[in-house]
């Protein structure tokens, strides 16, 4: 059974922290298909979050198709998250490692690297959104 943590100061909304922890557990194999997730009451008692936060997290995961609620029984893992095969992961990991080395050599510390990554991700999101809206 997975055990949740909620960091109240991380800046990531609590429901998203729960979603990310389930996805991560599925990628890492901590959770497998058929495994049961804790009930809303169990999560609420464990980490003291709003019950609607847990419901929202489970709803999001259900919409993604990763988990399913079986009436009267509980919530279970349906499948593992879609995504590129592990080979793609390691290939991208290697090229990112090269980039990080380059950034370090150029004098960027971790904070500068993280903030550059955040800005770049945000810009990519914005570009994708603009494209979707047809104003690009």
């Amino acid at each position, binding site marked *: 059974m997975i055990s949740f943590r909620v960091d*109240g100061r991380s800046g990531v909304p609590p429901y998203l922290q729960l979603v990310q922890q389930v996805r991560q557990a599925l990628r890492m194999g901590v959770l497998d298909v058929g495994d049961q997730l804790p009930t809303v009451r169990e999560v609420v008692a464990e980490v003291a979050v709003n019950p609607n936060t847990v419901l929202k997290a489970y709803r999001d995961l259900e919409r993604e198709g990763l988990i399913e609620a079986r009436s009267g029984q509980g919530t279970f893992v349906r499948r593992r998250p879609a995504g590129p095969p592990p080979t793609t992961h390691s290939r991208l990991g290697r090229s990112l490692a090269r980039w990080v080395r380059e950034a370090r050599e150029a004098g960027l510390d971790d904070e500068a690297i993280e903030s550059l990554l955040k800005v770049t991700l945000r810009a990519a999101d914005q570009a994708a959104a603009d494209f979707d809206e047809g104003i690009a």
Partner: protein
Amino acid sequence: MNEETGGLAIETSGLTKRYRRAAALSECSVTVPVGRISALVGPNGAGKSTLLRLLTGLAWPTGGSAVVLGGTPRQDPAFLAEIGYLAQDVPLYGRLSAEDHVRAGARLNLRWDGAAARTRLRQLGIPLDRAVGTLSGGQRAQVGLSLALAKRPRLLLLDEPVAALDPLARRHFLSTLTSAVAESDGGLTVMLSSHLIADLERVCDHLILLAEARVQLCGDIEDLLAEHMVLVGPRKDTSAIERAHTIVHATKTPRQTTLVIRRGGPVIDPAYQAEDISLEDLVLAYMGAAAPAAYTHLSTVGEE
């Protein structure tokens, strides 16, 4: 938990309480849907306790009106049976035990689940037979909360219940609270005043912000965060931003401008970097806008 029931647990309209000249609460219009855990925040003296007392019928308004669970707040048994209220500093009889309090509650209340209160306190390892005056602050708070929950209320009003507790006791208290809400399947609404934003962020899904005796913000936290943004950019004329959005708070240095805005549409000015706002920054922006001195009253004492 049927969060979309649509009903309102609390609805106030122009609610006002004046003492001689000064207004403790002025033109307060708020709504809290059934099943929410609502955070009541604001600097000391902003009117939080006054609002809670008006909602229980312990104080009478000098203007406006309140509808609580469909009725007008008043000190009569039928109305009070539905409401659990825990005043600041948890007023208990120090020489009496938790068991004495549970028994007294059975005589004083129309509906009383003493067994649930005893079970809860036993699970928490709190002795039922010791004078509550000898218990720790965290244990006394749990006794107070358990007594309030023993009424099986539909509305729980808590006035700074965790202010004096250490982090672990706070976590236990909030866990008891959220568990009670989960067990009610959406039937229990809570209003909770506190200065501890990190606690409120994990527990609450609704926010009411008071400053200078007036309501500055009221709504679901998710919506409020989506409606606001932080813009960071060079120091320059902000009138273009002002035409499209509402500037809640501006911090200007010689080089840089940081704006908290309520957005009126997408932010397209490329000179500004737009960021999501945290609940803490949102609260600080509105408190700072109402009264700059209010900043100093907001504690951000952490989680662990």
